[in-house]
């Protein structure tokens, strides 16, 4: 058994099984894009008829344990090896799933995810690092991802006037867009 819990991939597919955002952490299992797509297809066809909307569901394909949850036209999957503790995978899935919910203000559907793909990719990046769960608490995750909207980075004194203006305009447009 692996000493450290490892996630092999996180997939977000649409209602036709097409990729919305995916991240693989194990090149040995799926060395090529073709292998990845084939895996996604198997996973999708095996699960799309099930009802995973209220509670996360789980299945085994080949020697992988896959936990999954659906919302609207989106299908979320987290894959681990067959020895993996299903509940750890489920907590990773739940953390990521809920964080996306917070980031998109409950408006989780394909168009919204694509519109905010940068946030989703950052969220993936903060959830898992190279297969190791980095953070599984949805609120913390969402906070980490969203924190860049509040421009805490450079202190204002370090910015030139022009830059400050740009930043200010940036803020304004963003708050208007919300």
């Amino acid at each position: 058994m692996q000493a450290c819990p490892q996630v092999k991939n996180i997939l977000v597919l649409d209602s036709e099984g097409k990729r919305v955002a995916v991240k693989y952490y194990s090149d040995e299992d799926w060395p090529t894009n073709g292998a990845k797509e084939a895996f996604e297809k198997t996973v999708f066809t095996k699960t799309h008829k099930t009802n995973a909307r209220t509670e996360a569901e789980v299945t085994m394909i080949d020697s992988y344990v896959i936990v999954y949850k659906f919302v609207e036209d989106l299908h979320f999957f987290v894959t681990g090896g067959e020895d993996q503790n299903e509940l750890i995978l489920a907590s990773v899935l739940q953390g990521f799933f809920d964080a996306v919910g917070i980031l998109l203000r409950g408006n989780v559907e394909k168009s919204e995810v694509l519109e905010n793909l940068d946030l989703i990719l950052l969220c993936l990046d903060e959830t898992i690092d190279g297969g190791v769960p980095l953070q599984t608490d949805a609120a913390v995750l969402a906070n980490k991802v969203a924190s860049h909207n509040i421009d805490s980075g450079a202190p204002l004194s370090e910015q030139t006037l022009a830059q400050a203006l740009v930043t200010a305009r940036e803020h304004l447009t963003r708050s208007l867009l919300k």
Partner: protein
Amino acid sequence: MAQPLVKKDDDRDDEAEYSPFMGIEKGAVLQEARVFNDPQLDPRRCSQVITKLLYLLNQGETFTKVEATEVFFAVTKLFQSKDVGLRRMLYLMIKELSPSADEVIIVTSSLMKDMNSKTDMYRANAIRVLCRITDGVLLTQIERYLKQAIVDKNPVVASAALVSGIHLLQTNPEVVKRWSNEVQEAVQSRAALVQFHALALLHQIRQNDRLAVSKLVTSLTRGTVRSPLAQCLLIRYTSQSASNSQGGDRPFYDFLEGCLRHKAEMVIFEAARAITELSGVTSRELTPAITVLQLFLSSSKPVLRFAAVRTLNKVAMTHPMAVTNCNIDMESLISDQNRSIATLAITTLLKTGNESSVDRLMKQITNFMSDIADEFKIVVVEAIRSLCLKFPLKYRSLMNFLSNILREEGGFEYKKAIVDSIVILIRDIPDAKENGLLHLCEFIEDCEFTYLSTQILHFLGIEGPKTSDPSKYIRYIYNRVHLENATVRAAAVSTLAKFGAMVDALKPRIFVLLRRCLFDSDDEVRDRATLYLNTLGGDGEVVETDKGVKEFLFGALDIPLVNLETSLRNYEASEDAFDINSVPKEVKSQPLAEKKAPGKKQPTGLGAPPAAPPTTVDAYERLLSSIPELASLGKPFKSSAPTELTEAETEYAVNVVKHIYDRHVVFQYNCTNTIPEQQLEEVSVVVDSSDAEEFGFVLSKPLRSLPYDSPGQTFVVFEKPEGVPAVGKFSNTLKFIVKEVDPNTGEADEDGVDDEYQLEELEVVSADYMQKVGISNFRNAWESLDADLERVDEYGLGPRESLAEAVNAVISLLGMQPCEGTEAVPSNSRSHTCLLSGVFIGNTRVLARLQFGLTGPKEVAMKLAVRSDDIAVSDAIHEIVASG
């Protein structure tokens, strides 16, 4: 379910509007990436372009080397911007591009600056990026900062450094190992996830030091672990060190049991699973774990139910009794929405069920079978098969179940699983035979799979004639001749002939049927019919078919098909007919060894024994018969696998192959000269046989010349008493004349120097006199040998690592072929039966049945029963074991 469908229709028209990536194209996006070079950066625009690039990569698009380099250089410009959002997209992009070493240098300083920034988010992300793309040299430069980061107050930064450490440990272990003090400190962190990451890293650093791990585990099990994830790790480490520690008592069991009362479900489950997987777990230890798993079975969360039932399913294989308490909960899971859970529940029930519950269970399963996929059905069928073997008295209801599902729709794999199960049941439960055969007959009436039809027809031919009323099968078989494709028709003709040959009463009727087949449209069918009619005497009066004919027509071809194929390929049409007896019966050396060979050769093509020339038995034979001195010895009985007589990477590489003949032993030394500046001449091996009294030296055949890197062979022949499995040790010395080779011209000097090279000893052992010859049906072969020629004895094998190790040791000692996969010993089993078959020198068939059992802690005892055609050989086998 209906809702999204409707929605999709509505949205189809404006799909182009809502996907920001509609019609996206790599070339265009790469063009857009030029905005990164603008003197006045627009962070928002740049972020969008990066997102597009990431989207493309995510969709499986790849950048060429040039494109990737260009994007990378453009992206590095963005470090000028102070926009946090853009900076983080930039980090993502660099990680995705995974730049090459010379490119990394360009971003190093920027990243190092970020690593020391006041912004926690920068620090954490810069660490992760830098560690992802760094190499060993750079790592030593930033090591100081990483150590600081590990104990950083901010948990995000500390976690980033620790997780990076986990990855770096794979590539630069010696650097990461120096951090253990800091990591140790981080284990005490108040932040839950930091503790988890620190524990994972610390354990990986120390995993080879059992004592350190056990100390770490002991101290933590007493202290407080905050994160459930860290607690799960601790449970894993605990059970690992528990399995490493010897002896019966388990100091850690109390800790595991305590974890069953933890508040996080993942910890409870981890602990329960760890307990069930303890080696040699007692039922008393199991009980609390089973109890919590049972609670999980009725949870509202599918993941929890799945986890529990999957674990119980495994437990049921080794401790079926422990799981029976959960049977009621398990039965209600048969109707679970999640079919994976339902299937696991059913198979668990089938493993734990007792004789009285079988009928009830089968009723439930029948309803269940109609709505699951084929792959689940196969699992169920296999479980039913083993249940039936467990309770042979219940064969009637189980067989009925199998025949019912056989009639229903299903794919090939599923049908094959059912047919295989029925066949196994027929073979192992005599009462089930007639019933089962009729089910199979009915199945082929309407079977769309040619493969299955032919298999069943073949099986009918073997089993049918032995039943009380063979005539009732004829109709089914002859129907095939009318209604099927040529392959099945041919198989049916053979089956008919088998009935004719075995059952004299049926002969006249069979002949009539076979004669009709003479008008078949297919060549093969007609040929078979003609052959059978002629050999079985269809044109004369009814006579008992003699044994020779039966043997010729239906006897098993006890030759490995691979060998037959090679021999046929090598056969050239000539005056001499192909002689089937010339095909070697030896099972070819394991494919595993063959797979390894290319890897071995890889490094330089030198040190390794280059292509130890011919590897197959066949090729050896050709080699031996090409040398007049050796050809006169006859045909070798067996050739061993090559044994290395030199260490790897020495000046001369030598290995030896032992060819065993009836009265001689030939050692074939495969020599390779690995020194380019030398040529060896008159190479021979001087063999000292003083430790092998029964052997007498006959001749030595030296090798004239051995140039650099082209292998050659030298032979030594010994005489030994005929048919006796003489054993002994031989010490070897390589003798030769060394000549210098001019590197420019490649020509050897005139003068040479005598030299010697000490080789390792070689040994002729009993296993060398045994051919590995597999058989397909051990039981039949065993029964066919005279029980009077059986020799049984019991042996204590003393303390052993494991049962599997003991089994393997005996198999390699005897050098026989394991049959029916019995060489594999399931872990945790306390006893094992292994079936071996082989041919002993003098062409005597030998079968052995070995029963192993654990008597004390690690003490293995074995009961060995040997049958062979010759009682002396049976005794010889016992002698081998007794002295080995």
